[in-house]
């Protein structure tokens, strides 16, 4: 019973049944720095991860000169 978080070229396996927020924290990913999508739909942090879910994380930070 597991789900997968994918951020760029990294994958994190987490337990299904936990919230997205808990899964991010458990994986040491700062929730404020990513947006999560499941099957192309944006997720909020209270959503429960289901068995076999592949959650794509989109990094939101850009930077450099301004």
């Amino acid at each position: 019973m597991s789900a997968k978080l994918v951020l760029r070229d990294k994958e994190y396996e987490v337990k299904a049944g936990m919230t997205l927020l808990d899964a991010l924290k458990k994986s040491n990913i700062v929730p404020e720095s990513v947006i999560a999508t499941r099957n192309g739909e944006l997720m909020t942090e209270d959503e429960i991860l289901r068995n076999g879910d592949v959650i794509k994380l989109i990094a939101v930070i850009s930077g450099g000169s301004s």
Partner: protein
Amino acid sequence: MKCRKCQNKASVHMRQHKLALCKEHYLEWVPEQTERFIKKYQMFTREEKILVAVSGGKDSLSLWDILMQLGYQADGLYLGLGIDGGIGYSHESQRLSEKFANEHNLKLHVVDIEKEYGQSIPMLAESSHRGYGKPCAVCGLAKRHEMNRIARDLGYDVLATGHNLDDEAAVLFGNTLSWASEYLLRQGPVLPEADGLARKVKPLCRFYEREMTAYALLSGIEYIYEECPFAEGSQSIFYKETLNQLETTRPGAKLTFYLKFLEARKSGELFIEKNVKQGLLHACPKCGQPTSTPDLCSFCRMVEKANVKTE
């Protein structure tokens, strides 16, 4: 979590506002809020001509999209920086900017730094020996110089950039760490026009970077996801990550940090009045743009040092 407006499933939760919205209502809310900020900070009117600095990234393309939806006269400016980094970064940024302009029937000015000054940004950085091995300082300097020059040359009333709250908070954080009072005094949603300087505005300055990413994704805006190859390990990204850790624990911390700064600055509580006055600026003898030194401006000095033929 449910949308506050319609009770359907929410797509975006903004903890700092205690507000969750579905896709449809979020895509209404962002332009409404942008309009509110434009008016609050008296950025521009519908009669004025706006030049939007577009980079192909989520913020600048979203800004252009929002201004277009709100009915403002906004053309785009893309600066070709000549950055490749093994991923054709500038090429892809330009392609996406042009694609957006074409799809929305908008006017995009494209200016290539190498064609204008004989060298790309990485080449300028190397030959002028600025920036400690990274071209970010040269890039920032050249962009500010060129955006101002082009906005004025082409007769635009105002130059709009896609800086979001995370950009502003990171700059504020960096300047506060070193108490760079001169820079702190200049920071704000509007930099008024002055002799030789176009008015600069940041209509997205109160949206979190996460919110602008959500807007671009939900709007179907195709933007360059890859980071500038030179941005890795940059100070601004480090500050943003640090502030996001704080935000995770204390929702609203970034917004409060920025807004309280603006309030304090405006009230005069932060700095004494005599320091608020802008220092005396001189016209650069070469390009004519204002500079704090009586000699050449930083940009022209850099170009001269790089031994570049500018004409």
